[in-house]
């Protein structure tokens, strides 16, 4: 199985915010810049859960910055501050052990609120979906909407939790204008799911120090209400939109078992992917549907007591990157404090995207006592084992299982497999399966082939095209005729590039009936709707069939290309420093000298390489 190095993969996953504008819609795809995680986008449409409008406004201003520019800026910043440390080094701090626990709030994918039949909505007119109970109208009462249990239980199952047969709702009291009843209904004493865990793998991008995999315990998952949305106005005026109040959330609380900042970030991202896969939570961090609070503490590695240090909580982290950055900043602050002989105060801190330090929000003395009280209007929540069974058996295939299949069986790289799974909310991988099935049947029908070739050989080709070539279509190269983003149905159908056309095209390409260049042009024509009679007719009528030159002709071309390049050929003498770039130059020359449309670059390269080997007397065996 071909695997990227850990370092490459993780830097790719975490720093590689290669597309700021939505990998989901497939923009800006190219073979070099494959966006993987929708969550890596900068938060331009933040929608905080339980948060102050100030932070949202500041974050929203961050906007879109090209990666290259950002990297440059980062380097500049680092230089200014005299910090030579690069990201990869900041996972550990000598002599100290970091411990992190995470709380994730995620909006459930439900049509009704947790305790009222009002509809959940996203961008509807403010205060258009509000029941009496949502605004705490005197005399109104909560009505538990049992349908909300389905996504909640799915989430808990995806996190390997034990579903509790009986759980209860409690009131958590605090005054805030976005909380109309003066308390939030949550599950403090008896949550509906406990004792889960998820395993993070090296390919997920965890810190190298965590090795091949690390398992993080989930202490509990609880159901709770969201708050109203504050719409900051000019001056000191705030408007409140109660559409969001009472929308069901789950809060996922981990054990304090994470010891590296990147692993914490990967954890949050994986939770997001899992919740999305099992259809529990449809909007991610970028739309404010998911938010993380992290608890950070440090202790000296040689401390014999093994007691955890005093922890601080950083609230409202709204991007994956913020999780890692905030933990690093807070760890370093705590270490600095302790090394200077100080103490850590148990307090709540905040983090602004792009900043270097966490800031104090409120200290212990400012902490509110939530006075958790069982809600006297709500009966215990009794979850039948039949429901749990049913949801368990109908649970979607989890990403790890699917990823394994794509890598092991189909031979995709972990990176490409991840991209396929995450793009278009999972529709892209469905499209991949459809195209692959058609391609397979075409190969089976081929009279010249005795048995089907190794699945990996054509699956990787299909994967490559479905990710990279398809992605290229919607870039500016397609010109003004481009119909915009590719759209896929949930079942993986794409009207712009029908699976029949693509599989036909890939079939001919795989069988070397056409060249890659021709195939790309055909694909563009399909996308632009320029082919009227289908792929085959287009090839026939334009005579695009690939009529490859003979091996002798390749040899002759290699000879001709090498002519007058003696100086360059000398550079191939040292096998350890093989100048691949030079080889490609020579191959290019071959293509120019010969009839380009009849030359297969791969064969040309092979021929050229062999020719050079012979030139240096290394013979066929090499």
């Amino acid at each position, binding site marked *: 199985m071909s695997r990227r190095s850990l370092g490459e993969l993780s830097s790719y996953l975490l720093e590689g915010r290669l597309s700021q504008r939505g990998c989901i819609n497939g923009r800006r795809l190219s073979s070099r810049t494959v966006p993987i995680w929708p969550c890596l986008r900068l938060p331009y449409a933040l929608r905080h859960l339980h948060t102050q409008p100030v932070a949202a406004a500041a974050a929203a201003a961050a906007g879109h910055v090209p990666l290259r520019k950002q990297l440059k800026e980062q380097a500049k910043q680092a230089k200014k501050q005299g910090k030579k440390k690069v990201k990869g080094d900041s996972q550990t701090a000598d002599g100290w052990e970091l411990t992190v626990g995470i709380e994730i709030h995620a909006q459930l994918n439900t049509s009704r609120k947790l305790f009222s039949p009002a509809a959940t909505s996203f961008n509807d007119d403010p205060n258009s979906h509000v029941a009496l109970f949502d605004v705490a109208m*005197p*005399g109104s009462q909560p*009505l538990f909407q049992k349908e909300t249990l389905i996504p909640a239980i799915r989430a808990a199952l995806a996190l390997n939790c034990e579903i509790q047969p009986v759980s209860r709702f409690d009131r958590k*009291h605090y005054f805030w204008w976005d909380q109309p009843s003066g308390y939030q209904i949550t599950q403090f004493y008896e949550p509906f799911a406990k004792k889960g865990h998820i395993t993070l793998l090296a390919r997920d991008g965890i810190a190298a120090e965590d090795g091949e995999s690390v398992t993080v315990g989930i202490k509990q998952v609880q159901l709770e209400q969201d708050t109203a949305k504050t719409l900051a106005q000019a001056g000191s005026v705030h408007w409140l939109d109660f559409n969001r109040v009472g929308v069901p959330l789950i809060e996922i609380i981990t054990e304090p078992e994470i010891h590296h900042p990147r692993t914490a970030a990967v954890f949050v991202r994986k939770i997001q992917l899992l919740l999305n896969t099992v259809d529990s939570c449809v909007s991610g961090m970028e739309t404010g549907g998911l938010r993380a609070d992290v608890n950070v503490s440090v202790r000296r590695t040689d401390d014999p007591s093994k007691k955890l240090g005093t922890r601080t909580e950083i609230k409202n982290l709204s991007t994956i990157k913020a999780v890692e950055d905030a933990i690093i900043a807070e760890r370093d602050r705590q270490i600095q404090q302790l090394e200077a002989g100080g103490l850590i105060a148990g307090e709540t801190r905040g983090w602004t995207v792009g900043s270097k330090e966490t800031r104090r929000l409120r200290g212990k003395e400012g902490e509110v006592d939530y*006075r958790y009280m069982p809600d006297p*209007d709500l009966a215990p929540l009794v979850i039948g084992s039949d429901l749990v069974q049913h949801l368990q058996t109908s649970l979607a295939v989890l990403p790890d299982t699917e990823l394994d299949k794509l890598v092991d069986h189909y031979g995709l790289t972990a990176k490409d497999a991840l991209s396929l799974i995450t793009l278009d909310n999972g529709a892209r991988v469905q499209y991949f399966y459809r195209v692959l099935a058609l391609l397979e049947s075409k190969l089976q029908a081929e009279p010249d082939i005795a048995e089907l070739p190794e699945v990996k050989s054509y699956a990787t080709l299909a994967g490559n095209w479905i990710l990279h070539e398809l992605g290229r279509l919607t870039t500016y190269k397609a010109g003004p005729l481009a119909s915009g983003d590719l759209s896929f149905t949930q079942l993986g159908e794409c009207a712009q590039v029908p699976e029949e056309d693509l599989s036909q095209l890939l079939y001919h390409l795989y069988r070397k009936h056409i060249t890659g260049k021709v195939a790309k042009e055909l694909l563009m024509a399909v996308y632009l709707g320029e082919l009227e009679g289908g792929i085959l007719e287009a090839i026939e009528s334009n005579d695009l069939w690939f009529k490859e030159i003979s091996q002798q002709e390749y040899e002759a071309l290699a000879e001709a290309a090498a002519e007058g390049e003696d100086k360059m050929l000398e550079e191939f003498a040292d096998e350890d420093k093989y100048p691949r770039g030079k080889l490609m130059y020579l191959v290019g020359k071959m293509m120019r000298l010969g009839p380009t449309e009849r030359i297969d670059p791969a064969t040309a390269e092979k021929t050229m390489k062999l020719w050079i080997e012979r030139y240096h007397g290394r013979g066929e065996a090499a």
Partner: protein
Amino acid sequence: MTAALVRRRALTFTRWNANHNRSIGQLPLRRSQSTFNHFVASTKLQPVSPPPQLRSDAKPFRLAVKDNITTEEFPTQCASGILGQHASPFEATIVRQLRSRGASIVGKTNMDEFGMGSHSTHSVHGPVRNPLAATDEEDVSAGGSSGGSAVAVAVGDADVALGTDTGGSVRLPAAYTGIVGYKPSYGMLSRFGVVPYANSLDTVGLLARDVEPIRSLVFDTGLYEEHDPNDPTSLRLETRQRCSQACSPNLPDLSQLTIGIPVEYNIAELDPSIRDAWVATASALESQGARIVPVSLPSTKEALCAYYILAPAEASSNLAKYDGVRYGIRGSEGDAAGETLYSETRGAGFGAEVKRRILLGTYSLSSEAMDNYFIQAQRIRRLIQRDFDRVFKLDNPLYEPRQFDLSEMSSDTALEDKQGPVQVDFLLSPTAPTYPPKLSEIQKRSSVDVYMNDVLTVPASLAGLPAVSVPVKVDRSHQFPAGIQLIAQYWDDRRLLALADKVMKLMMD
């Protein structure tokens, strides 16, 4: 108190005096004063929804509604400054149910703010006065917190009144004003539209001069069978049917009944003349063939403590919504640094007793006190309920039948036979330990002394059991009748009311 509040209060009084010079009617009132401050003056509102469809069996009657039950025709302000003239956008289920049965609402009645009090004195409208007091005497308590409702019935302004009973708030004013006050089984009548004081204890209660109108409304018109999907604590239909099957609908002859006298209710503070009324009632029942036995409810002593932890705890939570953002008047300050948005609003809007209970509840729910107070009180509540289940013949239909171990009972419990101690159909006790006190006396008492008044009514509330207070006048020379309380097993309401009717008739002769 803000100037605005004072102004409004003054206005309320003037309006009231100008508009309500109605005669008191047939009651033997010795008071010249025409009002007992039992109604809340308010402007009629334009209802948002059409009146409910009248049932075919509807009979017109006048209904007074306690001001913590929402109505579309009148504002609902719970005798609190913080709710102003709150116009509820919806009407309580119980109000609609009664309107469809012929009720016309004569007004909203005065009460203790949010139902917190035993004398209807903690009201932004001022105290309710007891119509039974002699004219030349000082004002006397009408009981609380549904004092206004009780007086409306007592003086004949209403045929039936709605009250709420959390720890005795219907039974106590009924006892003080000489009428019938009924607190049904918890979960029978819908609380949707009842502004909660303590949800786990709150029940809608009915007051009338006789048992019959109450019994007829609840049972003949099938009120007890109606589940309200808007109230999560309203019993579901299947449960109602199951409960009804467990209890016989008919009261047998008195000779078939065993009535328990809970010995723990014979407290030292009990007024001797009330004790006499209690004994007289028991004797009268015995003379009719009923078997009267002493029973022990050992957890009773802790009931009052448990009640005054649980009810304020829930109250502190329920009242958190009155923060000046949507409900309550806003102070001049915002929430900027150094300013206090919430405390100013709440400080100005709530009365002293409500503030006291919010503080009590806030403390007992705080993380350091939770285990010692709230959790312990919940345990006591369970014990009290078990006590009742132990003495009643009928099983509690909400639970699997329970076996009680003799070792759990106090050693001086008398055994009936080898099966164990005697079990009873009903419990008989006084409703209040004393006759209604003078308002001036109440002011001198500490709040704990005032809370003592609820000692006989809170156990049934904590256990969710039906209870009714009926007036019994034994000492003819005494100005006030005594309130006698009957308590029954859960959902045994129908037989309870039948017995209450019998007791009342028996004692009137």
